[in-house]
């Protein structure tokens, strides 16, 4: 039950928050749309002029933009399935009864990677993955693998970003799925375990239906966060070597902040925002239909 209250009271309670969020969230967005219709380069302010949709045309036909998008999609396509698979294993282990102290400790340690400052995660990669001084290469040496130049080689640098993304976000996926597992009514799970000894059957037919909302949440959030991904690759490789780890947000930062072409960066970011919204709606439509 909710109260019916005068409109003035509602406005007094909501007004400040709505106004604040409009000023910091919507005004800059509208300004970005306006600037995206201009040629606007900070080093050539005098040449500023209205160019209509030219920037959008340039972005949509720019191979560099689509390569960055493709790279971002590839990162998502490799890292997220691994995160879901590993996360599900971790969630299932933690969901089993017994060893409760050990499980509490493990859950606490799972919280650490996702809370870590993303910029520091990239710096850690620099230190740990260094070809000569890095501890990861030392460990690879113990099992007879030659030192790998993770940061300096284009393909390896991309792999390194994928691995680091998996490190930081697998625990998050695990905890989201663990929350999903706890929504399965215990009676149903007990009954299923009496019926069959196969954990796989229980997972597939009893637990999975309850996990679908969590999986949709993971897909939507990982999509949004992968499109946002800036700090970690920026501090790790600055988008290099070449453009091997120049993901979409890193590209936009380079165009706006290091090439000073703000009109173009605005057009790129508006297109990226549109893609984010389309993907989020698509997921909700695809997956939730199945549940209903």
């Amino acid at each position, binding site marked *: 039950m*909710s109260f019916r209250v005068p409109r003035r*009271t*509602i406005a007094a*309670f*909501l007004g*400040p*928050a*709505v106004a*604040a*969020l409009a*000023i*910091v*969230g919507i*005004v*800059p967005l509208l*300004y*970005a749309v306006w*600037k995206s219709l201009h040629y606007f380069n900070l080093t050539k302010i005098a040449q500023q002029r209205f160019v209509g949709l030219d920037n959008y045309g340039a972005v949509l036909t720019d191979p560099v933009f689509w390569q960055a998008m493709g790279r971002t999609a590839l990162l998502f396509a490799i890292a997220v399935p691994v995160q879901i698979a590993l996360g599900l294993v971790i969630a299932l*282990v933690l969901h089993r009864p*017994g*060893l409760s102290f*050990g*499980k509490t*400790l*493990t*859950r*606490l*340690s*799972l*919280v650490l*990677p996702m*809370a*870590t*400052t993303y*910029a*520091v995660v990239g*710096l*850690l990669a*620099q*230190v*740990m993955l260094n070809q000569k*001084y890095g*501890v990861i*290469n*030392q460990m690879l040496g113990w099992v007879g693998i030659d030192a790998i130049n993770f940061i300096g080689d284009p393909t390896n640098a991309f792999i390194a970003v994928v691995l680091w993304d998996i490190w930081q976000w697998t625990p998050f996926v695990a905890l*989201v799925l663990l*929350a999903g597992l706890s929504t399965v009514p215990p009676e149903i799970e007990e009954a299923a375990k009496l019926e069959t000894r196969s954990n796989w059957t229980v997972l597939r037919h009893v637990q999975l239906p309850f996990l679908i909302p969590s999986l949709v949440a993971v897909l939507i*959030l990982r999509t*949004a966060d992968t499109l*946002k991904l*800036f700090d970690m690759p*920026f501090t790790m490789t600055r988008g290099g070597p070449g453009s091997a780890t120049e993901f979409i947000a890193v590209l936009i*930062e380079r165009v*706006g902040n290091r090439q000073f072409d*703000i009109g173009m960066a*605005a057009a790129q*970011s*508006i297109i990226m*925002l549109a893609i*984010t919204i389309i993907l989020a709606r698509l997921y909700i439509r695809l997956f939730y239909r199945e549940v209903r």
Partner: protein
Amino acid sequence: MAAPIQRRSLWGEAFLLLLIGLFCVFPFYWMVTTSLKTQVVALESPPVWWFTPTLANYREVLFVDKVGPALINSVIVAVCTTALAVGLGTPAAYALARFEFRGKTDLWFWFITNRFVSPVVLAFPVFLISRELGLRDTHLALILMYLTFTLPIVIWICTDQFRSIPHELDEAALLEGASQWRIFRSICLPLAMPGVAVSSILSFIFSWNELLFAYILAPKAAKTAPAMAVTFMEGYDVPYGKIMATSTLIVVPVLIFALLASRHLVRGLTMGAVK
């Protein structure tokens, strides 16, 4: 028959837990130990695991390299934006939880979608606007921009909290003639303190961790600690010990807060997608 199998699987499980824990914690162990190495020790190949620790890196970054002031900037920005978000967000959350009005779902949805907007979309327009207004390189610019993610967090978590407070309390107060504002201030807000605490911790963590706005909007005077850490990477001679000392100083406060709010961190990151 069953007992030995069970025991063996228990050992397997314990081993698995240990593996998961190590996977999560090892990079932090390496970060802290590297921060205690001199540059000579840090550049040994292969890396050494046992060495004489030194606090020289901490002394140097804190007092010579201006990481100290950057940490203070970070504290100022994170605390102010959190306070502002709580001040603006709790009344809004109360209204969303208690009042009935048209467009409520749309408003709610708009608050939550801010979670999906990449900061890179807003950073350049805000850079230009803040330059016009003379707000460039000030704490205020960062404090305001961080509201784009702290305010939705506070509103979302506190709305949930206000909904869980029984209506009987405010109905009784209403019969006594108390105004909605008075009910909010004197009855509901004190009862919603757990939610306020959790959302404050989360918005502190997210503001503390932010890099992109800080990097673009605050290049010098208001530079925050993560932006400071980035500048160490510029140049040829990469000072590993100093970078890791700075990283440790940045990460330790957030890890403490994250452990304090560990049960709610996932809730905060998913913004309502998962309870």
